């Protein structure tokens, strides 16, 4: 079972088109910053999406947030606690099963 300890959720509001996931995942991959879990849902009319990334809260997090904010398809980045997130529910469901 994955642990939520020392982890946070990055919540990104992004444009919804086929290249956006490449931009976001590529950024984390090329800066060698592991993404533990990922959730994506379209918002409203489907023109934007919300991406939630479960990541380690290490000292590079601030730089990753700044880099994510530089992506033109990313409108907003928020750092949220892992506790109480959708990931927590998924972890619980997985461990129950």
């Amino acid at each position, binding site marked *: 079972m994955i642990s939520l300890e020392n982890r946070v959720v990055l919540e990104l509001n992004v444009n919804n088109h*086929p*290249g956006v996931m*490449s*931009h976001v995942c*590529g950024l984390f991959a*090329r800066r060698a910053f592991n993404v533990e879990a990922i959730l994506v849902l379209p918002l409203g009319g489907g023109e934007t999406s919300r991406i939630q990334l479960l990541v380690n809260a290490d000292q590079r997090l*601030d*730089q990753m947030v*700044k*880099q994510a*904010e*530089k*992506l*033109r398809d990313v409108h907003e980045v928020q750092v949220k606690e892992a506790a109480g997130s959708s990931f927590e529910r998924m972890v619980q469901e997985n461990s129950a099963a």
Partner: protein
Amino acid sequence: MPSMTGAELLIRLLERQEITTVAGIPGGTNLPIYDALGRSSRIRHVLARHEQGAAFMAQGMARSTGKPAVCMATSGPGATNLLTAIADAKLDSVPIVCITGQVPLGLVGTDAFQEMDIYGMSIPVTKHNYLVRSARELLHVIPEAFRIAASGRPGPVLVDIPKDIQCQSVTFDMLPAPGTPETSPDPDIDQLNRAAEMISRSRKPILYLGGGVTQSGASETSTRLAEKNTLPSVMTLMGLGAMPHGHPLSLGMLGMHAAKHTNLALQECDLLIAAGVRFDDRATGRLEEFCPDADIIHIDIDPSELGKLKTDCVGIVCDVKTALEHLLANVQDKQRGEWVDRIATLKRDFPALLPETASPLSPYGLVRHAAEYVGPDAIVTTDVGQHQMRAAQAYPVTRARQFLTSGGLGTMGFGLPAAIGAALAHPDRSVICFTGDGSLLMNIQELATAAEHNLNIKIVLADNQALGLVQQQQELFYENRKFASSYGNALDFITIAKGFGIASADLAYSEDPASDLRDILGSNGPALIRIPVNAAENVYPMVPPGAANTTMIEGAAND
């Protein structure tokens, strides 16, 4: 309501961006664009001989003017050939817009002939990129591409346009406004005031100027600030020209190949005012030991640069010019006699020793002599290697956008096509390209482009029949085991130049090399000048990669 094809709309939008020259190569999937381009009376197309050459030509235009420039390529190999030059533009923050053809939308994802996912491949090397899915999208994509390329910290943008989209007809009410740079965010005045106080309090400040000073047009402001408060100034490779060569406060380039006094002065400073720099390892050496006693003010328009490597700085997210203007208005007139004396002592005790500058046949002498003969109006490009570092050390760069070099990526092959781009953008100036045989061979096909357009480019080739900087590292750090770093066969560059229809001179066989060099540099049109240099001559001083900047290996001339 106007109606036109996607290709015609693209060309119309480029015209409205005041693009007058486009470098590129046509192919199967961008022929509709070329068909429309051929009918434009405002845009001149320059046919490169390799797509990497086309993208470096766009870089030469953009670096020398500060405005976005355009290159074009077809899908597949055409597009992938652009990538190295796009990556180069990303690392040095150069605004170029690359327009690639793509297979028709219906064939995308089928491994069609010359299909390659250039959208996916270009993500890490662009500031932003697009795959256009309808001709109508061009109405906002093209102005936005130019806006993004030129806004904030500039960078490359790629627009991939499938062939059927180029042919699709589109009707619209009116053309959009051209894309122009966004205004930069307002600076934090409290932080700027705090920075001004830190400057006033400091006893041994140094101003550290990078490419961002050039990008924001702040070189005059930074020089006036330095003069008002007596701030000795160092420049990065990308910042050369921010303070004119020979200015009494200039300490020249810092870092791996700096003069010894420059790195020693940084070691002693108590305040580092970093403007438009990114603390690159070639500039700072071992970061933990860089300016160990200094407080740091870091000004950059890119928020992600602040705290990226040096974490304990006073960070100011701001256009460099705006910030320096504020500091200029808020710092005192100050003389700093003691610090100036100390710098003078360091300069006297550890001078920049550039051996044999009197001879035009020596590695440093060829730089100094060529600089004298082409004069201060010339634009300089370099390739990458020993000749590049020597040009950076020895060329009297007197203004921003004069010295064009591949800094971050260090791309051999940059010099010649970048010189072509600079010459296309500045037909009134002469352009001089310092190169080595290794670098020149990496884009030598563009001699044909230079000859075709009779551009005023002088290629000064320091020919050592080797990859000199590689040999230098093998000698110093691999117990002199030189491997795969010298060329087993001598090339006849004079015959090569002749084959391309380019004038040439081989100073190896010259009775009066200085006079011959002056004559050929003064001629019109392209020319290649070969000067044989000894591969065993290293560039000194040198900080070993990963070492502190105070660890400088010095050559015989510095003993």
